[in-house]
C-alpha cells in the first residue's frame, strides 16, 4: 500500500504531539514571566522588570519557532491555551522570583531533553537536529538565572535597589 501520509508530513506523529505540548509550555512560561515582570515593575524593580519582559518575549519566540517548524514539516500546530496563572503574580521576595524562574527553566530543559530522547527512539533525526538549538539555549538560560541567584546571595544584605541595578538586561 502506498504511504500517502508520509508524502504530507516529515516528522513523527508522537514527536509532533510532544512538540505541541512544548508549545503550551513555552507559551505558559511566556505568561509566567510577564506576570513576574508586572510584580517587579510594581515594586519599582525596573531592571528586573525589563529582564522578565525580555524573557517573556524570548519564550514566545521559542513557542513560535516550534509552531512554525511543525507546520513547515507538514504537521498541525495548535494554538496553546494558557491557564493556571493564579500563583504567578505573588512572590515574597526578588530571590523567590528568580528561584521560581530557575525551576521553570529546569522543567523546560527536561521537557526538551524528553523530546530529543523520543526523536532518537523513533529515528526522527530532522526534529532532533531542529531541537539542538533549544538544547544549547536552555543551558544558556539556566546559567544566566544561576548567575543572578549567585549575585543575589552575595549581595543579600545590600538594599534591593542595588541588586536590581545589577540584573542583566542585554
Amino acid at each position, binding site marked *: 500500500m*502506498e504511504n500517502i*501520509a508520509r*508524502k504530507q508530513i516529515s516528522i513523527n506523529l508522537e514527536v509532533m504531539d510532544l512538540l505541541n505540548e512544548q508549545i503550551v509550555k513555552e507559551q505558559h512560561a511566556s505568561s509566567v514571566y510577564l506576570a513576574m515582570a508586572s510584580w517587579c515593575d510594581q515594586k519599582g524593580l525596573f531592571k528586573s522588570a525589563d529582564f522578565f519582559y525580555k524573557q517573556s518575549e524570548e519564550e514566545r519566540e521559542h513557542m513560535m519557532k516550534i509552531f512554525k517548524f511543525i507546520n513547515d514539516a507538514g504537521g498541525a500546530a495548535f494554538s496553546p491555551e494558557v491557564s493556571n496563572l493564579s500563583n504567578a503574580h505573588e512572590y515574597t521576595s526578588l530571590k523567590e522570583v528568580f528561584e521560581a524562574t530557575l525551576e521553570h527553566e529546569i522543567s523546560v530543559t527536561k521537557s526538551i531533553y524528553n523530546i530529543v530522547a523520543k526523536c532518537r527512539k523513533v529515528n526522527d533525526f530532522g526534529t532532533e537536529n531542529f531541537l539542538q538549538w533549544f538544547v544549547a539555549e536552555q543551558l544558556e538560560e539556566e546559567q544566566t538565572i544561576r548567575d543572578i541567584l549567585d549575585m543575589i546571595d552575595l549581595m543579600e544584605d545590600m538594599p534591593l535597589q542595588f541588586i536590581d541595578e545589577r540584573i542583566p538586561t542585554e
Partner: protein
Amino acid sequence: MELLFASKYYTSYQSSEDQCFYIDFGHKLVEVSFCQLLSLRYKAKQLSTSEHLEYMLNHSDTTLLSFCDKKHVLLLDTLQILDFVDLINGTFAMIELNDILVIA
C-alpha cells in the same frame, strides 16, 4: 480505495489514486485530506479526555463534532465518541505500520 481500519461503527480508507483518505460514518462517506485527518486526531484526543467524557455522561450525553473546516457536522453520543476515537487511533496505527512496511 484501500481499507485502513474498521471500528464498530466507522471505517477509514486511503485512496492512492486521489491521494486522500475517506471515512465512512455509516450514513455518509467523507473525503479528508491528511491535514484534516490530523485535525480529527486532535479532536479525538480532546473528546476522549476524562473531563470531557465525564461532562458528557453528566449532561446531555451528546457532542457536536464539526470537521473539514465546518463542512461536516456529526452528533455523537458517548459510545460513538469512544468508537470514533478507536477509529482514529486505529487509522494512525495502520498508517504508521504501513510506513514501517514500506521502509522494510
